[in-house]
């Protein structure tokens, strides 16, 4: 049994934990970072990075299939899943190596092993007690299931889905949120028959309704089936497949069922409650500055209620390090965090939907404009359809931007500056967007809301 002491102990080395660690050492603190598995956490090993590699392989497959449309003669012969795996693992391995090197170079002490909070200022790892003047909880999340739906065999979560060594012939996806639609998109591009089951009335139900509807239309065109507003009832597994029953009596047969119904916080059995930390439905409750009710203990990332996104965890990690350093960092609210769904077509948004803006500011205080990408030259060249909707407060700032279409994810950078700086469309109207780009479409939407539409990009 040994004891080590640091200025800050961080429990969990995912996006939230390692970002906090990196910023903290930069600010002159000593840091002990406890990780039981691999630095980088969900995002690097089982989330953002490997899924986006699959989605890019999927794009390449689609391009190849549709190449004749663009005058390219190319014969699509299928997916070499072993090669996809090599590609995916190569990306992850290289980022993992980079992260390990960085963490080491910065002088962060990584403590390998499963940690448990044993006091407001100490984490126990095996026989060792790791003391910290401040403690940051960053234990992340796991794939949830539904009551009575057991994961195993042909009923899988995103972890197993990522590592499949074959392309299923027919697959059912339970949940039409971000993770569900991304896997559905990949599998369809890889050649599978896909059916999504979503209990809410829309795919990506947190997005602007018109975006959800357009995604549904695009998926229908791609031949991705979905059943909306219908709840899962049960599933049976047999030798070569699964049989799902839905509450409306319908059944779905498939080789595999992907359960993508959300992610739960990893907070049980880690000593949090014993240390007096307030937990609500498994999540760690914090104030808006990410402090728990126990002085000196902070929480970041997926265990904090709100958006479960890597860049949010990352930013929260930086925030808490700066907070502990007394730098009084600026809070960025969840609503001002960009959200990108990387299926084909992509979905990207920031700020309020029209409905939420109407609730907040009053329906008659809000206007919006939805620019159809049919009018955008570059989108036309990409043969994509979709739209960009901008929501503003009348005589007031831009409070929401909602986009759908191939590659729109990257447009969120401009949208987020506009929303985060509370710009008025009039502030952007005099600026000139590059032609022919997709971000011109954003420019057109701003122009329209500033009262000067031209519609000719």
């Amino acid at each position, binding site marked *: 049994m040994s004891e080590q002491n640091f200025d800050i102990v961080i429990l969990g080395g995912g996006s939230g934990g390692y970002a906090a660690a990196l910023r903290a050492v*930069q*600010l002159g603190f000593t840091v002990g970072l406890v990780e039981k598995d691999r630095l980088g956490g969900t995002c690097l090993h089982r989330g953002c990075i490997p899924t986006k590699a699959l989605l890019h392989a999927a794009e390449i497959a689609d391009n190849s299939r549709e190449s004749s449309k663009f005058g390219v003669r190319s014969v699509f012969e299928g997916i070499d899943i072993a090669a996809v795996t090599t590609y995916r693992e190569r990306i992850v391995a290289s980022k993992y190596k980079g992260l390990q090197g960085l963490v080491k170079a910065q002088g962060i002490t990584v403590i390998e092993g499963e940690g448990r909070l044993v006091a407001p200022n100490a984490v126990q790892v095996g026989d060792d007690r790791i003391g910290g003047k401040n403690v940051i909880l960053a234990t992340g999340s796991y794939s949830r299931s539904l009551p009575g739906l057991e994961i195993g065999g042909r009923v899988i979560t995103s972890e197993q889905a990522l590592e499949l060594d074959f392309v299923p012939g027919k697959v059912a996806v339970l949940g039409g949120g971000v993770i569900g639609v991304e896997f559905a998109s990949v599998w369809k591009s890889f050649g599978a028959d896909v059916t999504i089951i979503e209990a809410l009335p829309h795919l990506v139900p947190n997005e602007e309704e018109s975006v959800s509807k357009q995604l549904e239309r695009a998926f229908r065109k791609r031949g991705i089936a979905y059943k909306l507003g219908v709840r899962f009832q049960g599933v049976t597994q047999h030798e070569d497949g699964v049989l799902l029953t839905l509450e409306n009596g319908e059944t779905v047969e498939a080789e595999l069922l992907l359960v993508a119904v959300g992610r739960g916080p990893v907070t049980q059995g880690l000593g949090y409650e014993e240390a007096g930390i307030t937990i609500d439905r498994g999540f760690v409750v914090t104030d808006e500055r990410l402090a728990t009710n126990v002085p000196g203990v902070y929480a970041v990332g997926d265990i904090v209620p709100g958006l479960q996104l890597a860049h949010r965890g990352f930013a929260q990690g930086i925030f808490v390090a700066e907070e502990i350093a007394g*730098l009084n960092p600026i809070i960025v609210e969840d609503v001002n965090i960009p959200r990108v769904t990387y299926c084909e077509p992509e979905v990207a948004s920031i700020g309020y939907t029209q409905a939420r803006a109407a609730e907040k500011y009053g329906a008659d205080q809000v206007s919006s404009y939805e620019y159809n990408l049919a009018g955008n030259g570059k989108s036309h060249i990409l043969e994509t359809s979709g739209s960009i909707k901008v929501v503003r407060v009348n005589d007031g700032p831009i409070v929401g931007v909602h986009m759908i279409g191939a590659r729109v994810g990257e447009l969120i950078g401009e949208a987020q500056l506009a929303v985060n*700086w*509370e*710009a*008025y469309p009039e502030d952007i109207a005099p600026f000139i967007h590059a032609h022919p780009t997709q971000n011109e479409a954003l420019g057109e939407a701003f122009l329209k809301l500033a009262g000067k539409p031209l519609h000719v990009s």
Partner: protein
Amino acid sequence: EPPMRPERPRSTPPVRKLARDLGIDLVGLTGTGEGGLITRADVEAAASVTQAPVPEPT
């Protein structure tokens, strides 16, 4: 680590740009936004004072 720069009046870039376009110097203004942030309303208020109609000389 460069020090924070409290000497620069806190505002957002579009509001600073608006102030420049209206010829308003942010240094003289008191921000009414969160943490003393100079808001668009602060700039517009300052502009309406400076641009108050000047009586015609008779």
